[in-house]
């Protein structure tokens, strides 16, 4: 079976400015693709191109195997949820949801059945007679989803649908979207600048920057094996530690020398690496640096380091230190004995390490 969505060599220019540069991506039936990146990276433009709301300069877009590159939005078999919800202000909730069907000339009886189904699914039955202005943010969000769901399209497109909600509601709606995806088995493309949203929702993530795809992969791949410095830094909170290190290749893999201002250099080893340039950036997630007193009996490298800052965050405690001239964060258990200004034994899990070229920023292992 052909992929639900297939984007090939897509380019988009506004005059001389290149907005999207040779984008390639595809999703299978039932997949949840998240386009993530900082603002201005072209992710929303890409979504608009998929919807047919923006013309593209070159390349092809296929939906369910059909070439949709020059097809108008209404014939692409898609539905879209917008950041501002874009509810029709003068229409009731029910009319908002059925507008698409009405435009397409679907029988009134069928409209009512579908409306009832969707209203039940999203628990907005009591709101059907209200105007959008009389709804709260979360309710508007549901109506916007209802308008998309009622169409039962091949592909759902979401353009930052949660960014106008407050923090608590955002987490709730995130879970709800995830459930919806699982229950409906629908194919979705979702745009966000929030990497946590991307990680929690996606089955596949496309990380973008400056109109170019940086990496495509499952959330785990993106998180564990970021393709370059940008992805490493962008995905994950707190961000991945990127520590400048000097490499010394010996018969048994590599050893890394990391300078410290008030102590002898920190030396770490990785036996599973064949070759590296002389200078690299060593990437370690905060959770790959641990408290030695709480993580015994594992094959981890231990080193004594100076603690600069201790930040308790409930479930975890973040400890900041300075290694190789940069600030390094360690995610420790809440019950850690780490003290500001004191020295402590830390474990370094080099099996999880990423190495990046200091000049090009590309991943080396």
């Amino acid at each position, binding site marked *: 079976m052909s992929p639900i969505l297939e984007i090939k060599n897509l380019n988009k220019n506004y005059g001389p400015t290149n907005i999207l540069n040779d984008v390639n991506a595809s999703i299978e039936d039932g997949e949840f693709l998240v386009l993530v990146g900082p603002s201005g990276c072209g992710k929303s433009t890409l979504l608009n191109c998929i919807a047919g709301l923006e013309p593209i300069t070159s390349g092809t877009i296929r939906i369910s195997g059909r070439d949709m590159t020059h097809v*108008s939005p*209404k014939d692409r078999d*898609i*539905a879209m949820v*917008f950041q*501002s919800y874009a509810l*029709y202000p*003068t229409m009731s909730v029910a009319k908002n949801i059925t507008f698409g069907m009405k435009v397409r000339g679907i029988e009134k009886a069928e409209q009512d059945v579908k409306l009832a189904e969707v209203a039940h699914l999203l628990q907005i039955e009591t709101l059907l007679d209200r105007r959008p202005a009389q709804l709260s943010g979360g309710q508007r969000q549901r109506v916007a989803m209802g308008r998309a769901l009622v169409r039962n399209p091949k592909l759902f497109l979401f353009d930052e649908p949660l960014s106008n909600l407050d923090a608590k509601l955002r987490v709730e709606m995130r879970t709800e979207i995830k459930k919806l995806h699982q229950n409906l088995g629908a194919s979705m493309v979702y745009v966000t600048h929030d990497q946590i949203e991307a990680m929690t929702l996606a089955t596949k993530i496309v990380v973008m920057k400056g109109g170019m795809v940086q990496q495509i992969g499952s959330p785990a791949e993106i998180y564990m094996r970021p393709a370059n410095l940008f992805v490493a830094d962008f995905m994950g909170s707190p961000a991945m530690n990127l520590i400048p290190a000097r490499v010394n290749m010996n018969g048994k893999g590599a050893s890394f020398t990391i300078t410290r201002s008030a102590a002898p250099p920190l030396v770490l080893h990785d036996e599973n690496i064949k070759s590296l340039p002389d200078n690299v950036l060593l990437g370690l997630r905060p959770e790959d640096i641990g408290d030695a007193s709480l993580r015994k009996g594992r094959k981890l490298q231990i080193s004594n380091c100076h603690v600069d800052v201790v930040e308790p965050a409930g479930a975890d405690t973040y400890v900041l230190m300075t290694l190789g001239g940069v600030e390094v964060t360690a995610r420790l258990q809440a019950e850690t004995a780490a003290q500001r200004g004191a020295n402590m034994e830390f474990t370094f899990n080099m099996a999880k390490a990423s190495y990046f070229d200091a000049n090009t920023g590309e991943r080396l292992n």
Partner: protein
Amino acid sequence: MTNSSITNPLREMMKRFVLRWLLYLLLCTFALYYMMPLFVMITTSLKNLEEIRTGSLMSLPREITLAAWSTAWSSACTGIQCEGLRPYFWNSVLLAVPAVLISTIIGAINGYVVAQWRFKLSNVLFALMLFGCFIPFQVVLLPMARVLGMTGLAGSISGLIFVHVIYGIGFTTLFFRNYYVTIPVELVKAAKVDGASFWRIFFSIFLPLSLPIIVVTVIWQFTQIWNDFLFGVSFSQAGTQPITVALNNIVNSTTGVKEYNVDMAAAIIAALPTLLVYIVAGKYFIRGLTAGSVKG
């Protein structure tokens, strides 16, 4: 210490109270000043000629008579004809109503396109239309006369409608464009994905939102067109003249005794429709003018 903390707010209140009433007094003075001409017009129109000649300008009529009003409406002389304002009033209605409607509809569609369906030269086009707003009436008189002559519309009410529609489009487009530009573009996108066409989106989504700006535009256009004298006097002929031209003729072409009461009554009659429009739709006018700044 406690004393001062009590008297201070009291003093503040007093100060504010006095200032507030001074402001009201000032506003009332202005209001009276601006009402004065209307007062003189109304009282004079209700007096008979004898009383006007002997009495003072500001005094109330001793004896109220509507004779001047009926003369002004149906028998005052505009040059050689003596039919009053009545036929010209209907000329103005026949001119203003279609011209207002057509220019408002075109403005709404133009505004919708310029604000929500941008294309390559849409900003240039809009700028050119704006430019039209700033061209003085006098500049277009001759070219317009040529155009009307060539199209065979010269001297007809249709010709005047045409002139006012063309002249009004700049303003009506500006009003609607500024109103529609505050509506998020995502609304059009959502409707496009829903399958709605250009016109469907306009009629189902934009027009129902537009009441405040329609009212503003209608008031503006109606006032402009009803009160217009220059186009009316330039492009009409006997029988198609609007009320402003007739009023001028009544006031300026009387022979013998000047009938001030008739002149005043005629002037009020000529101004009544615009007054009425303001009174009926005034609150929407204010609302529409400020609507752009408040998000829904």
